[in-house]
């Protein structure tokens, strides 16, 4: 795809995802919140497709929008949840919550803009370690060619600046295959443990949710 169109689509989907995410916490009816969350997950899945992670995008739609959201809607239907009314102290809560979340977002954004190799800023920690290393071992850094080579390889900027590396169009279709190869070779034991975690979650949900007998 044309990179300009791809970038435009990313910004469009990101804006839509953020708006529907705000809808989750602003809407008072829990059913509206759940539907807004489904919309948000759909847009995030579109962003995954845009980034070339097709399998994760499909999984996002099937697992989140298909399974988890339906579970949420079932529980809302079962419990007959009323929409939240204006309770006292909600405004104070909202102001504090928005302030803390805004500070968190600003912190993450400034850290993202200062990634090593990123445009318009460099990592302060990176410069600090570099100066410290040259202070501690100036002789080794200047005389030993292998050491200076090593240092150059360490302090080379990571590929975090500029545009993301383009994907090989021939390998785009093999996304699920490559992910599965990685999953079943390097992370096989982790996958088995994950299966046990799902089993434990299943048993836990049944044991917590069952109705206790009175006797």
């Amino acid at each position: 795809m044309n990179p300009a169109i791809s970038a435009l689509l990313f910004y469009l989907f990101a804006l839509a995802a953020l708006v529907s995410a705000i809808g989750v916490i602003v809407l008072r009816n829990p059913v509206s919140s759940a539907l807004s969350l489904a919309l948000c997950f759909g847009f995030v899945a579109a962003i995954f497709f845009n980034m070339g992670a097709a399998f994760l995008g499909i999984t996002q739609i099937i697992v989140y929008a298909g399974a988890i959201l339906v579970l949420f809607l079932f529980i809302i239907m079962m419990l007959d949840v009323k929409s939240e009314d204006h309770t006292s102290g909600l405004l104070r809560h909202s102001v504090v919550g928005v302030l803390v979340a805004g500070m968190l977002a600003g912190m993450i954004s400034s850290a993202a803009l200062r990634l090593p190799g990123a445009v318009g800023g460099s990592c302060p920690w990176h410069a600090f370690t570099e100066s410290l290393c040259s202070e501690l071992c100036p002789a080794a850094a200047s005389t030993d060619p292998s050491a200076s080579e090593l240092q150059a390889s360490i302090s080379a900027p990571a590929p975090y600046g500029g545009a993301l590396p383009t994907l090989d169009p021939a390998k785009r279709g093999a996304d699920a295959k490559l992910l599965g190869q990685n999953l079943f070779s390097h992370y096989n034991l982790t996958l088995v443990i994950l299966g046990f975690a799902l089993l434990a979650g299943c048993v836990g949900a049944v044991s917590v949710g069952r109705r206790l007998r009175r006797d």
Partner: protein
Amino acid sequence: MTPLSHYLIFSGILFAIGFAGTMIRRNVLVVLMCLELMLTAANVSLVGFSRAQGLEGVPVYDAQTLALFIMAIAAAEVAVGLALIVAMFRARRGVESSSLNTLKD
């Protein structure tokens, strides 16, 4: 075209919205939804890093595997969380977090 930092900023803002929701909302169901939002934001940044570290047109699949694990754990978490909410509704006749005040008084 899009640098990695824009993906990370998007993920950070999405995480912050979820975080604000867990603090502001009283309805425990909506708090659980906001937790899901935060996990999804983490997935976005993982996929972004997998693209940025990729070589020869292939992303690093370790990060995407981790994102897949996060999705599976999120499914288990929602199952247990919703069972807890049903149990809480039986005990308290409501899903407001303000009704959970046994330790307070």
